[in-house]
């Protein structure tokens, strides 16, 4: 190793806290009480031997009885009339669309079991994020509404229709307002249905309300350029990216798309052509984007606006009135560096800000205009339709309704009682509305909760449950000129009806059937755009899933408004959120996993560790270690955070990189009526929002108090420890340019000694290459793997016991920035109280899964040969042979083996996931579910390998590279994972592994892992602090 940098996953690991050392001595957190039983008290107990013999006797008896069982009778029920396209046992793929992404839905015997990206998708070219992958599980949620509901009880569609129609007629006659509140809709057909509804009831208005909104950007563009749109950002065209709190690789606007764009300038291909973008991030809490930045500077929320003003000044060479220096020398210096680099990259620069403040966004527009970004890195003419929320309109509605001015309201995919900052206002307002209809699909909330529906719909007269999108017809228009189609892949599971169809019926539309409506709409206006027409054209669309109209030329826009007032607003605002005394600055953010909480009842997402904090099943208060130390908090202490009389009590998480004097809390948690999985997981942070300057703002001044309680976070970060062995290799772009091998540790030659015989791999040698520079750590692969391989969800309590089952995990390592030498670092660390350098940490994400070692240590120790090597380079795991000694997991240097402590799919303690016949329909029938007491691990999707080979054999051709894609690789939006046969020198994976950057984790053990990693390259410069 050239560098002796220290990497750590959690502070407990860095400081080697006694608890951590103790826990890591054991492979499994809780040792079995064998020793206790054998020594002392166990044998002294009254009758241990007799009990043992009883158990033994019972066991033998039970086994013999079980063996005497007659053949269990299995029924085999064929189709009465088999649909022609279905062959039992063979998957069908249908195109559809998820949030504007073109997708493929894999169905087996008529039920969707997996979502895959459509390679033709304009946004992410076949990649999908974790939410999209997890969306299939929601179809099988047993807590979906099973029938329409009226006044808190189940009803029928006829009753609902006649009730709503008569009410609407009366309201129309009365002349009072009707409001339809939805989260952003970009579906052209849905918008047309709403337009038709408004025609029938002219006093209706449609309000787009996004819980996490982008109104600031939209209004700033209206103000600056007269275009009220969310622009299409092009990170792929940017050489220098400066972001102020915009988590564009996480939760900001279009995750998978931006990941794809961003990495295209940082992956192997780009590096080989000696090109790499530079990314500077200024932010408060550590976001997923911040972890990937080349330079990350923590700034307080109150400093952010000033920092942007200073950047503007530095770029324009002028000084806006009221400009002031930042009280933060590092940030001030970095702003100047950023300004220089941005200017140098004019036309290929991009500045983005996550703020929802119109003034901030206007200033950012001005900066981008100076940098010549419009027409290059920002496209206003082919705008994004993904978010169109208007915060002001919702506030106006609430005020109207409170005064009794609204007689009817419809909620479509909107839940303001939960996610509006003043829930009480919404409740008061709803109390005065005569007809309240929700299209929410939430039904019962599990045992013990009698309320039906979600937070908002439980206050409505009528719940007209909507279909899941996999049961629906529809379309999408995420970007101007990009149309996708939604087609159903299963018959409606429950007695639900598509919201659009309900609206058609209630507005007495001439077309009552939504499918016909979509068809007509496409025939009329959309098919022609793709040069298609008629039935044939429609069928072609259904096959391809999308239509793309050629892009309009992106115009260049120049900013010409006066900025003095804008600067003044920003400064006032900054001073409003600057905390003084013992108060702290609070940043409320959207976690890239749970987002706005609409998917809170999805256990796959709840158990997916947050990419930065690695916390599952909870939100928390993130705080800088040094600041917490000053305040006297320990990790896990429950802190009470209060703003304007609303308070939450959440455990404290030490987050290196968090700005001093600030705390961050994620929204999307604390649902009370989401369903049994999502109810009361964490606390609701939406009430910390405020409505300032015409938009929702996410920052506040909070007072904090210790509650004295402790609550252990279900955090996976240090669960699988390497005992401090070095597993990360990284270098800088400058060093890489000089020597591509830099940092890979491949310069030295070693003599190898081996204990094992060589295996022959005559035909295939399945391996993987993972580019650490392309991996952003988003976690989509984890969910894709869960779906493909029937990986169980274990729940918060079990995660705390280090028993999560994920076959692939993403290890997140912190390290102290390069310029800190080893000696300095050690000196500092020795002084326990000095944690200054935690402000500037750099992060590496490393996907870790079974390495399929050629000299696998697990194979050697298995006493029953349950895990053995194959002639194709795979390490097989035969579950039925496994007797659960767990030796293999103990001997695995990568800690990738998982033990089934329970029958997760048949145990009432795990009710929130697979323990019901309905949810079990999501299981992949080609992969067996594992029983209690056996080991499991990544199989390299052997079912896909076998299927790919069989297909080739049937077609009498040799297997082509790319025929087989493993689940994690398929979904990765950045193509960080490449899988294939390394015996074929032309395969993508063989070429990738030939890269100079390739290294193998723990190569020195000579276990010959099958997964090669490529060195992380950072575009850092020597001058940086």
């Amino acid at each position, binding site marked *: 190793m050239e560098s002796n940098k220290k990497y750590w996953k959690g502070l407990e690991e860095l400081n080697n806290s006694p608890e951590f050392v103790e826990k890591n001595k054991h492979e499994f957190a809780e040792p079995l009480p064998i020793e206790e039983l054998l020594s002392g008290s166990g044998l002294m107990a009254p009758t241990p031997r007799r009990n043992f013999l009883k158990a033994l006797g019972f066991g033998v008896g039970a086994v013999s009885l079980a063996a005497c069982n007659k053949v269990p009778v299995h029924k085999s029920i064929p189709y*009465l009339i088999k649909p022609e396209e279905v062959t039992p046992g063979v998957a069908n793929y249908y195109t559809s669309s998820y949030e504007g992404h073109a997708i493929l839905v894999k169905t087996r015997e008529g039920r969707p079991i997996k979502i895959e990206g459509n390679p033709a998708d304009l946004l992410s070219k076949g990649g999908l994020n974790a939410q999209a992958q997890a969306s299939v599980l929601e179809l099988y949620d047993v807590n979906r509404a099973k029938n329409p509901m009226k006044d808190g009880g189940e009803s029928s569609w006829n009753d609902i229709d006649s009730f709503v129609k008569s009410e609407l007629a009366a309201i129309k006659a009365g002349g009072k307002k009707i409001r339809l509140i939805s989260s952003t809709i970009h579906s052209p057909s849905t918008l047309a249905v709403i337009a038709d509804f408004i025609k029938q009831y002219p006093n209706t208005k449609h309000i787009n309300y996004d819980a996490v909104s982008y109104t600031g950007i939209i209004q700033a563009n209206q103000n600056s350029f007269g275009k009220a749109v969310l622009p299409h950002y092009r990170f792929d065209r940017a050489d220098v990216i400066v972001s102020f709190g915009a988590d564009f690789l996480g939760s900001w606007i279009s995750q998978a798309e931006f990941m794809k764009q961003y990495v295209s300038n940082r992956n192997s291909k780009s590096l080989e052509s000696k090109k790499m973008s530079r990314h500077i991030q200024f932010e408060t809490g550590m976001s997923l984007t911040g972890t990937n930045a080349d330079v990350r500077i923590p700034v307080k929320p109150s400093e952010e606006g000033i920092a942007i003003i200073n950047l503007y000044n530095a770029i324009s060479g002028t000084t806006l009135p009221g400009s002031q220096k930042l009280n933060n020398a590092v940030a001030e210096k970095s702003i100047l560096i950023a300004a220089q680099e941005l200017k140098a990259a004019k036309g290929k620069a991009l500045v983005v800000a996550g703020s929802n403040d119109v003034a901030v966004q206007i200033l950012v527009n001005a900066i981008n205009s100076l940098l010549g970004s419009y027409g290059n890195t920002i496209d206003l003419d082919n705008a994004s339709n993904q978010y169109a929320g208007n915060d002001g309109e919702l506030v106006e509605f609430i005020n109207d309704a409170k005064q009794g001015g609204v007689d009817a309201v419809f909620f479509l995919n909107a839940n303001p009682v939960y996610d509006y900052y003043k829930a009480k206002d919404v409740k008061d307002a709803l109390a005065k509305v005569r007809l309240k209809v929700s299209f929410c699909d939430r039904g019962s909330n599990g045992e013990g909760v009698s309320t039906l529906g979600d937070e908002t719909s439980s206050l409505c007269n009528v719940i007209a449950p909507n279909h899941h999108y996999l049961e629906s017809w529809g379309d999408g228009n995420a970007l101007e000129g990009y149309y996708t189609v939604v087609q159903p892949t299963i018959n409606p599971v429950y007695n639900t009806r598509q919201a659009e169809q309900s609206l058609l019926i209630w507005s007495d539309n001439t077309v009552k059937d939504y499918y016909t409506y979509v068809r007509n709409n496409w025939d009329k206006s959309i098919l022609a755009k793709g040069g298609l027409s008629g039935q044939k054209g429609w069928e072609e669309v259904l096959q391809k899933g999308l239509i793309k109209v050629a892009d309009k030329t992106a115009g260049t826009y120049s900013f010409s408004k006066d900025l003095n007032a804008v600067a003044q607003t920003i400064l006032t605002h900054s001073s409003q959120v600057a905390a003084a005394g013992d108060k702290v600055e609070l940043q409320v953010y959207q976690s890239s996993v749970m987002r706005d909480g609409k998917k809170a009842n999805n256990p796959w997402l709840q158990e997916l560790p947050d990419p930065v904090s690695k916390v599952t099943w909870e939100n928390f208060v993130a705080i800088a270690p040094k600041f917490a130390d000053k305040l006297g908090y320990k990790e896990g202490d429950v802190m009470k955070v209060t703003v304007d009389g609303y308070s939450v009590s959440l455990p404290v998480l030490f987050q290196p990189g968090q700005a001093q004097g600030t705390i961050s809390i994620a929204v999307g948690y604390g649902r009370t009526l989401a369903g049994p999985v999502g109810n009361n997981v964490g606390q609701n942070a939406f009430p910390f929002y405020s409505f300032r300057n015409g938009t929702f703002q996410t920052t506040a001044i909070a007072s904090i108090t210790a509650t004295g309680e402790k609550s252990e976070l279900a955090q996976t970060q240090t669960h699988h420890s390497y005992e401090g062995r070095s597993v990360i290799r990284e270098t800088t772009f400058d060093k890489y340019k000089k020597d591509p091998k830099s940092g890979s540790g491949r310069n030295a030659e070693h003599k190898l000694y081996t204990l094992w015989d060589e295996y022959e791999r005559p035909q295939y040698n399945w391996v993987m290459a993972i580019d650490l520079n392309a991996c952003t750590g988003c976690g989509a692969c984890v969910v894709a793997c869960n779906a493909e391989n029937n990986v169980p969800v274990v729940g918060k309590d079990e995660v705390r016991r280090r028993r999560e089952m994920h076959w692939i995990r993403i290890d997140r390592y912190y390290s102290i920035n390069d310029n800190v030498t080893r000696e300095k670092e050690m000196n500092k660390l020795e002084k326990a109280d000095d944690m200054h350098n935690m402000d500037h940490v750099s992060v590496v994400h490393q996907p870790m899964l079974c390495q399929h070692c050629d000299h696998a240590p697990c194979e050697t120790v298995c006493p029953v040969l349950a895990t053995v090597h194959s002639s194709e380079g795979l390490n097989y795991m035969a579950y039925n042979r496994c007797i659960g000694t767990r030796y293999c997991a103990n001997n695995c240097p990568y800690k990738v083996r998982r033990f089934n402590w329970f029958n997760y799919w048949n145990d009432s303690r795990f009710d929130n996931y697979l323990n019901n016949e309905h949810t079990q329909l999501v299981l992949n029938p080609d992969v*067996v579910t594992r029983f209690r007491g056996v080991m499991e691990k990544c199989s390299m999707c052997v079912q896909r390998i*076998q299927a790919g080979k069989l297909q080739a054999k049937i077609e009498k051709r040799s297997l082509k590279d790319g025929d087989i894609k493993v689940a994690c690789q398929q979904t990765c939006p950045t193509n960080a994972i490449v899988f294939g046969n390394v015996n074929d020198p032309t395969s993508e994976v063989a070429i990738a592994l030939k890269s100079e950057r390739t290294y193998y984790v723990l190569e020195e053990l000579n276990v010959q892992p099958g997964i090669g990693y490529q060195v992380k390259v950072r575009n850092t410069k020597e001058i940086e602090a």
Partner: protein
Amino acid sequence: MRNISSIIKQISRSVLLVAGFAMLGFSGHAQGDAAKGEALFKANCTSCHKLDVKMTGPALGPIITSETDDKWLTHWIQNNQALIAAKDKKALSIYNEYNQAGMSVFASLSDGDVSNIIAYVRGEWKTMKEKPPGKGDPANPQTSTESGPSDLVIFGLIGVIILAFIIILVLNKVIATLERLLLSKKGLLPEETETIEGGVPVDKLATVKKLLKNKKLVFFIILCISIAGSSWTWVTLWNTNVHTGYQPVQPIKYSHELHAGTMKIDCQYCHSGAYKSKNASIPSLNVCMNCHKMVKTESPEIAKIYNALGYDPKTQKYDSTKAKPIQWVRIHNLPDLAYFNHSQHVVVGKVKCQTCHGPIQTMKEVYQYSPLTMKWCIQCHKRTEVNYKGNAYYDNMISVHDKIKRGEKVTAAAMGGIECGKCHY
């Protein structure tokens, strides 16, 4: 005895095989173009016609042989609808006889094709009349032989034990006699205590009691019992959950003997999944209805199909509200932990259905023929040669080429076919 029966089975099979080949040879030289005709016949006609039996359409053997007007026949086969439309007398009579169910139009068949078919039908019918058909297909001679230790071994073991027991008894007797002789020589033999006094019955159990006192004997008996017990347990354990011969009662008395045996309907016609999918799949009822809309409509078993579909044979209408699926009982229950794919074996491996499912064409009711144990799978994978010829997939398999060069057998096992992860995932 299973052994003998299987030997007899084997012999009878080889006889059938010879008979079958002889038959094939016979039909081979019927006509110059009959071979082409046969292919065409099988491709186009067999779904509705047989030579000897009435199916959806008439039995073609007699009707085509007796019809002398070949020109009319050709017209009829190529486009019967035209003949009917032209009110041809013969055509109309056939049409009416078969409930006015029109025959498909075969416009694609040329005059030559049709004459080939006719030639084939006539030739075939002639041979069929001369020689009654043998029963069943020549079944694949490869059969399963595995089911734990064979019966012979067990019976042998028991025999040996009994023999040993007898020998020991005899020896005991000899020892006792010798001892008595010895004692009597020394004059130590005690007086017979029990003298027969006036016909008082002797204690009948005396010998048993005496034997029981013999510790060696008791030990030996216990030993024998435990050996017998453990070998029985061993065999039973080996056969736990092995259900060879499992023959549940099915909801419909469907006979494979009739359909696959007598009617010679190709397996693929109903079990099309076997060629495409991991599941061979039980046919959906619409497949049954392809024929049974017309055939055997009066049978109570067929009525079950109609009931399940909600089909009224009189009005020929379906009522889907009355439809309810038929619940067959699954016979071949491979455990979930084993992945088995039919298409791999049937299409790629070209394994005959009978290899695993036994003489299905003779089964009135289907039973599980093979043990479906892992040992059985592996045995076959070790013995079966891979049919790599003509499949480009195997072209790049270096290991295969090496083996062929060395003149070794290329079995499924040699290709990695017995590695755990090929079936268990």
